[in-house]
């Protein structure tokens, strides 16, 4: 039996994208962006602090990095916990040693469960963004809109109350979204979302009435992708990011500012056999002409120029 005729019909075959979440444009064709201090490259280091429930629902699919064994999967649960108990302190020491300012993407349930850790983050004063409720609370296509609205609201209220910060950035668990996520985030005061990884610079979402910016947090350069998914060596992790940094710097000198965004997990890079490689990478990055800033500072610097240019 042949396919339905809809397979030979293409209603969205038109100029631009096949959706209205954002507009089509090529990075190299856009006006040059300048970062503060005339630095060519903005460096955004995000540390993801996560709670993976032992009794995960896996709805609508098992979250990457989550439990894989029959319940109770103690090995994966406790190793994720290791990051929040031990690994994070190694990461913070390494970042401080090289003067790199991080942001923290935090699951709101983790903030509830670990007041000591949360107080530590608050005392540091670095920006915190919302990483959803927990790693098993996925936002997904087909999710009832009211249910997602409540989930976002609970996640943001909890984190705003606990941190005293405005919380204007968002990273979805597993970077998964529903068709409504962007609009719901904007309605609840989120100003930038890091889920979409289709660019090396911020851009504007067009799907919501309130301004919402994309701040792409590279998946390809994150520790989980390189070490956990691809099983590349630690030295290759360092090599890949140094190569990326070199290329983006080179492009920035001819085409205007670029963004190097690194996502780091304490349960991976906070391991004793890996922390030395992170230090090596940070030593390299700290020698480059980068503007190391928080997610919201990068978005603000970018947005100001877009408005000025418009």
């Amino acid at each position, binding site marked *: *039996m*042949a*396919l*339905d005729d*809809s*397979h*030979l019909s*293409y209603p*969205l*075959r*038109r*100029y*631009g*994208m*096949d*959706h209205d*979440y954002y507009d*089509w*444009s*090529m*990075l*190299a*064709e856009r006006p040059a962006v300048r970062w503060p201090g005339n630095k060519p490259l903005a460096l955004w280091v995000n540390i993801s602090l996560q709670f993976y429930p032992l009794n995960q629902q896996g709805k*609508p*699919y098992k979250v990457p990095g989550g439990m894989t064994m029959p319940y109770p999967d103690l090995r994966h649960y406790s190793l994720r916990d290791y990051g929040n108990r031990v690994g994070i302190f190694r990461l913070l020491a390494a970042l401080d040693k090289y003067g790199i300012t991080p942001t923290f993407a935090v699951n709101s349930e983790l903030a509830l469960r670990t007041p000591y850790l949360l107080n530590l983050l608050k005392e540091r004063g670095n920006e915190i963004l919302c990483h959803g409720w927990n790693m098993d609370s996925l936002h*997904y*296509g*087909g999710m009832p809109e009211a249910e997602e609205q409540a989930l976002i609201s609970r996640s943001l209220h909890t984190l705003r109350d606990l941190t005293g910060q405005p919380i204007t950035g968002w990273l979805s668990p597993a*970077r*998964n*979204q*529903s*068709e409504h996520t962007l609009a719901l985030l904007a309605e609840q005061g989120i100003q930038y979302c890091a*889920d*979409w*990884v*289709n*660019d*090396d610079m911020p851009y504007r979402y067009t799907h919501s009435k309130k301004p919402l910016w994309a701040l792409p947090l590279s*998946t*390809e*350069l994150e520790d989980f992708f390189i070490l956990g*998914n*691809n*099983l*590349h*060596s630690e030295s*290759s992790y360092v*090599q*890949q*990011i140094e*190569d*990326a*940094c*070199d*290329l*983006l710097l080179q*492009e920035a000198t001819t085409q205007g500012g670029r963004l*190097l965004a690194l996502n780091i997990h304490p349960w991976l890079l906070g391991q004793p056999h890996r922390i030395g490689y992170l230090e090596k990478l940070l030593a390299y990055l700290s020698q480059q002409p980068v503007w190391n800033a928080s997610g919201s500072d990068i978005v603000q610097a970018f947005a100001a120029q877009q408005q000025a240019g418009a």
Partner: protein
Amino acid sequence: MKADPGFYQYWPYQNRPKIRWPGGKKLAFWLAPNIEFYELNPPDNPHRKAWPQPFPAIQGYGIRDYGNRVGHLRQMALLDKYGIRGSISLSTALCDHHPEIIAMCKERNWEFFSHGIYNTRYTYGMSEQQERDMIRDSIESIYRHTGQHCAGYLAPALSHSELTLDLFAEVGTELFGDQAGFYTCDLFHDDQPTPIQLRSNKRFVSIPYSLEMNDTIAYVVNKVEPRRYGQMLKDNFDTLYAEGEQSGTIMCIPTHNYQVACPHRLKAFEEALDYITSHPDVWITTGREIADYYRQHYYDTALADIAAKQGAA
């Protein structure tokens, strides 16, 4: 269902009639950037899911969009630097979505061949007429937007039917005679061109388009480290270049702007291109030119040699 696709006979690599490429070159090098469009919400094909997550599957979609927004111009700059004309494996709907990209390739006289309409519309389950219509639409799109008579085919997302090669050859003939529809990239059985037996008996060839050197296969399927991929390209070249002394070989690098042109991968790729193009006996060319040259100079001797060796068995 067949146990053997029936497109070619066993033809041992050793002792074939000697090939020399134009100018006496030993190795024909071509580079095939896939320029693709993946739909965010394609109709469900019962035989294969387009995305692992429910709509909107933004992770997979986003990185492919990255290829068009960011990666394309990076790879293009490298190809310009090393004097390489791309042979574009094109999701032809991209002519509508992103005509800027098509214009840039056209300016450089790059080749366009058909990679279907969208890389999210699979051949699986299509009737013969549906597949014929899809192929015709794609060839007509290439002609309308570029003026080129599409010579080659790589089925969308490597999704095939038993008739894919036949239909491509036949539709090419119907539209533009012998000037279209005469080579396929869908077979990985050889390091030299080989004649392909079709029901129309058209002079049709398979051109090596390596799966192993394909950046998506290397990076996504085989999870190769970027610098190692660069080394694999050089090693692949060294062997084919040395063997080209006996009889001309072909090296193809199939690429994707969302893989090879990512910032952490471009350097390894550039080093390989620098290495390959620095050798004297390399014919830097396109898929179409290889297929054309082969059909004119070696097709008949190849058929005779294949027949003789079948007889010898």
